[in-house]
């Protein structure tokens, strides 16, 4: 019997591969995600391992408030350079070298910064020590920079942007940009650093342009031979100031890797979620395809039963078939994942996320998870059709046109579908409306509710198909002539089949609609805030708009002609009420450029806190406020104002301190935004004046309110596009569902199509008939999915309490048009098959 099942599979290769495609795509996404994130992880870990391989111990700055990254502005503080000679003087230390670091962007020949998204690293290193193996920077060609006019850059930039030793190149760190002569080409460790650029200076120059005179950020320590790392570490600990810490090279590599792997893990979970959605849609497609093929094989199962096959044997043969399909599809998907990983990476690079990579990592876990998951999903999806196959009575072998008996549960169909949908809606409402639950619980309830809702609606769908097809197929029936009318009727002929096919598409469309609704809500909220708050003429941000930029650019604008006010918002971290939070800084001029609401009694100056924060901690105007900053210093301030920011957010975090205080507390203050008011407002002369003043600050850009709004929204737009691309995978899976159903239908109606051709239907009409049916099915998917998506978008928006509820009509029209196009695409192959049928053969087809 198993042999029969396998032979049958071979005999129906096309149908079997149709079933398999859904799984191939879903599993490719799973395996591609694993391959990509494993490769990135290996890239980071390889990078950090080679970075530290020359040293035995690493001394780095320590943030008094925890967390922090030595290269981030205003986070881990630097320590005094006098530590270096003391480290060298330790009995077990053979050698030690130090450096300073600060984010530094290279400036291209066009005067624009390179790698504004990926960012750049800058180092100042001691040239006397740079040749030895302790430091992670390795010279590839040329020489190390030895004075304030020289720089070394990374290999990739030199190759990609055509910069050679001896050329001039610009670099900008925390002050104005300068031009340097390239003395050498370097690399960091032995691994890829993704899209990040390197700028290396001699130590004194680094200290000067990073504003870290007399300071160091890292010391690489090499021990005398035979000294155990713990002994070295404890010796070093004895002389460290409180702002420094020491780790063994291995521990430091692991620490850095762990820091980045939490980030890659987020990417991994994020991508896996979409793989899960694609597989979920895929399980609908498989269940439907199998149901149809099994219905078509009713006679075959009946014949087997008359020949003595038991129900159990029939069940087993269908399940074995599913297992084989599932397994083979998983194998194909697994390897397709290798290609998809490359595509996903290109997608990320296109979005500005260019991460280090090792050679492709194909882990055992990837193989096991992909194969097991694909096989199990196929198996589960096959259970219902398989049980239906066992319901075939032997007598069906003797009847022509025997139909598959309805499943035993069929008569509970409607109540079950209603109960399922009601349960889903209850869960959704709980998630959206019960404000006593935590956001996580609420989102979980919504997530679960969505899954169940999709099931419920899919179960209800057979009853909705007929009225929907009547409405949605009306245009085709009206203008498409007989093919249009027949297509409409065909769509209604097997409602459960059309419903299952449309349901798969419904899921993808519902999810993209949710995304569109939320994004529109977020944008309208954000734009609302910008309109309310923005009282300036211009805003100044870093080139990418999100990372803070040195304060020198804003300071330079203060003296530009026509400038009345420049008020900046600094960003940093501090520990307040025992918790590490982001804080902001601003100055007394701020109300002249930002019109924010103040709680009565406020002086409109920092230090101020937000209304919610004040409520949470029982703060009033006049309350004391204590902050601990990364250097370990404690700031004691008195609250002078309380702001009531609009729902769409403000430039300020919960706690804002005066910039003067900020600049004393943070070694390297940086601005998130600066706002500028000029005599005459926004004019082209004023814009030119500002740009002239900014000539030496290519890392910063000046924008009008509209430009500012757009560039700040880029984050949302980027995320939105990413979500669309990832969700499109599940839509593609559901398109294959339509292709499957149509091809199987064409098989099934061979004799009928032959008859239609015999009585005079042209090939073209036959093809149109299939196309119309496909479009009607796709439109049913849209008619189910888009309203569900709008409803879910409203609920989720309510649960996360941020976005305004906005229906993006334009986008929805685009989705409907896309559904029609999708339907036409899905019909290409089936329509061609139907058109090519040989009339005589089709009429004799049994």
């Amino acid at each position: 019997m198993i042999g029969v099942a396998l032979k049958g599979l071979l005999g129906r290769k096309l149908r079997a591969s149709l079933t398999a495609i859904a799984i191939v795509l879903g599993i490719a996404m799973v395996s591609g995600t694993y391959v990509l994130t494993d490769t990135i992880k290996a890239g980071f870990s390889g990078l950090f391992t080679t970075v530290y391989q020359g040293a035995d111990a690493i001394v780095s700055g320590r943030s008094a408030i925890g967390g922090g990254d030595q290269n981030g502005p205003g986070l881990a503080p630097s320590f005094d350079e006098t530590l270096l000679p003391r480290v060298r003087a330790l009995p077990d230390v053979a050698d030690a070298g130090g450096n300073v670091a600060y984010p530094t962007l290279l400036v291209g020949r066009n005067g624009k910064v390179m790698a504004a998204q990926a960012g750049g690293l800058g180092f100042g290193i001691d040239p006397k020590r740079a040749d030895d193996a302790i430091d992670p920077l390795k010279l590839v060609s040329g020489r190390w920079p030895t004075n304030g006019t020289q720089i070394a850059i990374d290999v990739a930039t030199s190759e990609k942007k055509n910069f050679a030793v001896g050329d001039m190149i610009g670099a900008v760190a925390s002050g104005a940009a300068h031009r340097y002569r390239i003395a050498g080409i370097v690399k960091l460790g032995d691994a890829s650093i993704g899209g990040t650029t390197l700028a290396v200076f001699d130590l004194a120059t680094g200290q000067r342009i990073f504003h870290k005179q007399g300071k160091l950020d890292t010391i690489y320590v090499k021990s005398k031979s035979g000294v155990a790392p713990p002994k070295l570490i404890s010796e070093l600990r004895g002389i460290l100031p409180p702002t420094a810490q020491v780790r063994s090279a291995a521990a430091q590599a692991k620490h850095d890797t762990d820091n980045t792997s939490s980030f890659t893990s987020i990417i991994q979970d994020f991508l896996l979620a979409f793989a899960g959605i694609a597989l979920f849609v895929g399980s609908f497609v498989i269940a439907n395809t199998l149901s149809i093929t099994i219905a078509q094989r009713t006679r075959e199962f009946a014949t087997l039963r008359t020949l003595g096959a038991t129900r159990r044997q029939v069940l087993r043969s269908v399940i074995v078939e599913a297992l084989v399909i599932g397994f083979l599809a998983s194998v194909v998907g697994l390897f397709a994942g290798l290609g998809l990983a490359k595509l996903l990476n290109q997608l990320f690079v296109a979005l500005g996320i260019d991460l280090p990579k090792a050679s492709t990592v194909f882990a055992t876990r990837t193989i096991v998870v992909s194969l097991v998951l694909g096989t199990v999903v196929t198996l589960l999806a096959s259970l219902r059709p398989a049980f239906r196959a066992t319901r075939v009575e032997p007598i069906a072998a003797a009847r022509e046109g025997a139909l598959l008996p309805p499943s035993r549960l069929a008569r509970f169909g409607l109540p079950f579908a209603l109960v399922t949908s009601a349960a889903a809606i209850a869960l959704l409402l709980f998630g959206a409306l019960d404000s006593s639950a935590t956001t996580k619980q609420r989102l979980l309830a919504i997530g679960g509710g969505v899954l169940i809702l999709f099931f419920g609606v899919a179960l209800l769908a057979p009853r909705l198909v007929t009225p929907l097809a009547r409405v949605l197929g009306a245009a085709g029936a009206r203008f498409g002539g007989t093919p249009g009318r027949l297509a409409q009727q065909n769509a209604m002929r097997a409602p459960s089949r059309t419903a299952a096919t449309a349901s798969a598409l419904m899921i993808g469309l519902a999810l993209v609609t949710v995304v569109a609704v939320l994004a529109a809500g977020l944008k309208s909220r954000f734009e609302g805030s910008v309109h309310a708050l923005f009282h300036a003429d211009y805003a100044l941000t870093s080139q990418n708009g999100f990372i803070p930029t040195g304060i020198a650019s804003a300071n330079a604008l203060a003296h530009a002609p026509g400038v009345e006010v420049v008020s900046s918002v600094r960003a940093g971290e501090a520990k307040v009420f025992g918790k590490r939070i982001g804080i902001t800084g601003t100055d007394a001029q701020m109300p002249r450029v930002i019109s924010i609401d103040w709680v009565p009694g406020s002086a409109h100056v920092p230090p101020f806190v937000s209304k919610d924060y004040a409520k949470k901690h029982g703060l009033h105007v006049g309350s004391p406020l204590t902050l601990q900053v990364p250097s370990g210093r404690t700031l004691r301030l008195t609250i002078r104002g309380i702001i009531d920011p609009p729902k769409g957010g403000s430039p300020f975090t919960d706690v804002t301190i005066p910039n003067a205080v900020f600049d004393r507390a943070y070694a390297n203050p940086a601005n998130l935004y600066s706002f500028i008011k000029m005599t005459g407002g926004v004019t082209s002369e004023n814009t030119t004046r500002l740009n002239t003043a900014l000539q030496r600050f290519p890392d910063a850009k000046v924008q009008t309110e509209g430009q500012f709004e757009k560039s700040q929204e880029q984050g949302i737009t980027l995320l939105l596009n990413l979500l669309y691309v990832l969700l499109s995978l599940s839509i593609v899976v559901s398109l294959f569902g339509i292709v499957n159903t149509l091809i199987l239908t064409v098989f099934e109606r061979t004799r009928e199509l032959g008859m239609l051709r015999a009585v005079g239907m042209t090939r073209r009409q036959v093809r149109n008939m299939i196309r119309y049916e496909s479009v009607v099915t796709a439109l049913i998917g849209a008619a189910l999915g888009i309203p569900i998506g709008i409803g879910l978008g409203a609920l989720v928006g309510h649960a996360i309490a941020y976005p305004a509820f906005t229906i993006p009509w334009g986008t929805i029209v685009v989705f409907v048009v896309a559904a029609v196009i999708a339907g036409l695409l899905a019909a290409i192959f089936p329509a061609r098959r139907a058109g090519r049928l040989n009339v005589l053969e089709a009429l004799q087809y049994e």
Partner: protein
Amino acid sequence: MQARDLVRRYGEGATAVEALRGISLEVQAGELVAVMGPSGSGKSTLMHILAGLDKPTSGTVTIAGEEITSLDDRKLTLLRRRHIGFVFQFFNLLPMLTAEENVLLPLSIAGTKPEQRWLDDLLSRTGIDNRRTHRPSELSGGQQQRVAIARSLVSRPTILFADEPTGNLDSRTGGEILDLLRESVDAYGQTTVMVTHEARAAAIADRVLFIADGLIVRELERATAQQVLDVMAGLDA
């Protein structure tokens, strides 16, 4: 095989149709019985019930000493494996299997192996010896029916049922199939019940049962085609 007082009613109430209205019959081992009658007289219904594919509204069927109308699906399936063979009007071959694999299907379903000598003999007698590796799509209708007959004989069933085995074939091919059925009765002592429309087919039978309106109305032993035609003409009138 024995059947007693078979009644089969389709539907309920006013629209109910009595396809069988009390049929009793007995088939001896090694006998070839033909069932004839006008269209809609209940021949197929009778066959399906005798073969355990359908259940009578009342009455009993006994095959190899076992009363089959009260058996559950599993027991019936096992009974079919051991005791019953089928030949359909539509050949019902599995398109993806070769002729030989189709023949062997009942054995492979039951998980047993064929006896090579028996198989060779069967295939040569049914005339598909040189078509063993062909697929149904590569066989003519007559050849397909030969495969179906070989398939029904391969497990040496106690009784073989054939519902209009020649219904889909031209008269020459049909004649060959009838010869084959007769031969299987003579050579293997295969007990056979065959439903047919054709007088010629009935003429090869040891006994012909005539059914009209769900009742056995006549019975002829070793009738000629002409005798059968005469009876049929009387029934139609």
